[in-house]
C-alpha cells in the first residue's frame, strides 16, 4: 500500500468519527448555547437536502420514484412550515452576547424562511412540465380562473347592461314572431273556409252535371235517329224506281190522250 492510500484511508476514517471529536464539535458549533442558531442551522440543512432531492427528481427517469421523491419533499416542506412559528419565538428571545442588529437580522431570516420553503420545487408548483401527461387533472390550468373566488352575493346575479339588453331584444323578437304567426293562422283559417265551401259547392254540382250528361246523351241519340230517318225519307223521295214509274205512267197518260185525240178528230 502506498502512502497516498494510507492518507486517504485515514482521512475517511477521521471524517467518519468526527462526530465523536468533542473539540471539533465545539468549534464547529460556536453557537452551541443558542437554541435559535441551532434550530436555524437544522432548518438550513433540511432545506438544502430538500433542494438536492428536488434536483434529483428532475433528473429521475422512473416516474414512480419521481412521484415518491416529490411526496417526500412535500412532507418535508410541511414539517418545516410547521416549525417556523417555533423559530420565530426563539428569534425574539434575547441571548447573551447578541447585538440588537443581529436580533433584527434573525427576525428577517425567520420571515424569509416560509418563502424559501415554498420555493422548493415539489412537482406541483410551476408549469406542466413538472407533472407528466398522465396526471392532467392534478395540474391547475392557468387559463381557467374563477373571478368570484366563490363569493355568491347579491352582486353576483346582478344583470349587467349587456344581459338586460339581450333579454329585451329576445322579448321583442318573440313578440314579432307571435304577431307573424297570428297573421299566418288567420290566413290559414280563411283558406280552410274557402276550401270547404268550394268542396260543398262541387258536391252540389255533381248531380247537376250527371243530369246534364244524361240529357245531352238523350238529345244526341234523338238527333241521330232523326237524321237517319230523314236520310231514308229523302232517299225514298229521290229513288230512281219511283222516277221511272212516274215517267212510264206519264207516257201512258200521254198515249191515252193522243189516242183519244186521234179517235175524236
Amino acid at each position: 500500500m502506498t502512502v497516498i492510500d494510507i492518507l486517504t484511508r485515514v482521512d475517511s476514517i477521521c471524517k467518519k468519527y468526527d462526530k465523536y471529536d468533542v473539540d471539533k464539535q465545539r468549534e464547529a458549533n460556536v453557537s452551541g448555547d443558542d437554541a435559535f442558531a441551532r434550530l436555524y442551522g437544522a432548518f438550513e440543512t433540511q432545506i438544502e437536502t430538500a433542494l438536492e432531492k428536488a434536483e434529483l427528481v428532475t433528473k429521475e427517469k422512473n416516474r414512480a420514484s419521481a412521484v415518491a421523491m416529490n411526496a417526500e419533499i412535500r412532507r418535508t416542506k410541511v414539517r418545516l412550515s410547521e416549525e417556523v412559528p417555533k423559530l420565530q419565538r426563539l428569534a425574539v428571545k434575547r441571548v447573551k452576547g447578541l447585538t440588537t442588529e443581529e436580533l433584527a437580522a434573525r427576525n428577517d431570516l425567520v420571515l424569509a424562511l416560509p418563502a424559501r420553503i415554498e420555493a422548493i420545487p415539489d412537482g406541483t408548483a410551476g408549469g406542466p412540465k413538472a407533472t407528466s401527461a398522465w396526471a392532467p387533472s392534478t395540474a391547475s390550468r392557468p387559463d381557467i380562473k374563477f373571478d368570484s373566488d366563490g363569493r355568491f352575493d347579491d352582486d353576483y346575479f346582478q344583470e349587467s347592461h349587456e344581459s338586460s339588453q339581450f333579454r329585451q331584444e329576445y322579448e321583442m323578437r318573440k313578440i314579432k314572431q307571435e304577431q307573424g304567426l297570428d297573421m299566418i293562422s288567420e290566413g290559414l283559417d280563411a283558406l280552410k273556409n274557402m276550401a270547404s265551401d268550394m268542396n260543398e259547392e262541387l258536391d252540389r254540382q255533381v248531380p247537376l252535371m250527371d243530369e246534364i250528361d244524361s240529357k245531352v246523351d238523350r238529345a244526341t241519340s234523338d238527333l241521330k235517329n232523326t237524321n237517319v230517318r230523314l236520310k231514308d225519307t229523302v232517299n225514298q223521295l229521290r229513288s230512281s224506281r219511283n222516277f221511272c214509274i212516274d215517267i212510264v205512267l206519264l207516257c201512258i197518260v200521254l198515249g191515252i190522250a193522243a189516242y183519244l185525240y186521234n179517235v175524236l178528230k
Partner: protein
Amino acid sequence: MSSDPEKMMSKADKMTKLTLTRWSADWRGATELYEQAANGFRASSKYERAKVALEKASQGQVMQSSPWDAAKHMESAAALAQKLSIWDEVADFYRKASELYVECGRAQPASDALGKAARALEEVKPEDAIQLYTDACEILEEDGRDQMAFDLYRACASVYIKLEKFTDAATFFLRLGVAADKCDATNSQCKAYLSAIIVYLYGHDLKQAEKCYNDCSQIDAFLKSDQNRTASRLLTAYNEGDIEEIKKVACSSTVSNLDHAIIKLARKLPTGDVTAVQMNAGDDLDEDDLT
C-alpha cells in the same frame, strides 16, 4: 200581320172568344199573337199592357198543354209586375209559375221562381217573403235537392233577423243544419249551428243558447269542428261575464266566415246585462246535493 200591338191584342182576343161563328177557340194563333203583342209593348215600354199580354199568352199555353212555356211567360209577367211595383201580382204570378213548373216535374225552376218572388218582396212584405222562402225550401226538400236549399234558408233567416224575430231565425238555422246533415255538408252544418247559438245570445237568451249548444254537441261533426270550440269559448265567456273575451271571440276568424248578418250580430255582442249571468252561476246545484 199588323205591327201594332194593340191591334194584335184585339185580334187575338177575338180569336179566343166563343161566338156563334167560332165554336172553338183558336188558342195557338191567339197565343202567337199575344206573344208578339207583348214584345211590341215591351219595346215601346208599355209595361202594363205587356204584362197583360203575357198573362194571356201564358193562359194560351196552358190551354195548349205546354206548362213549360206557360210558366216562362208567367215569370216574365211577374218580372214586369215587379218593375211596376205591383206586389200582390208579383207574388201571384210567381206562385202560378212555380206551380206550372212543378207540373212539368221540374222542382229547381219552381223553387227558383219562389225564391225570386221572395227576394222581390223582402223589403216590402217580409212576412210574405218568409212564406215564399219556406215554400221554396219545401219544394226542394221534397225533390231531395237539399243542397240548393241552403241559400234559401240563409236568406230566410236573415229576413227574420231583420224583423228581430230571433227565435225563428235560430230555428231556421237549425233547419239548415238538418238539411246539411242529409247531404254531409259538415262545414255548412257547423256554421249553421254556430250562427244559431249567436242569434240566441244576441236575443239575450243564454239558456236557449246553452240548450242549443248541448243539443248540437250530440252531433259528431259539430263536436270535432272549429265552430264547436268557438261556441264553447263564447258560452264560457258569457258565463264568466268576461266582456273582453266575448269581444275577442266575436272578432275571431271562425265567426268572420259566417254570414254577414251574423257577423254584425256577433260584433254587437254582448248585449244586455252580462253581470246578471254571473249571479246565475251561484244558483248551481250544491256539490253536496246528491239528489
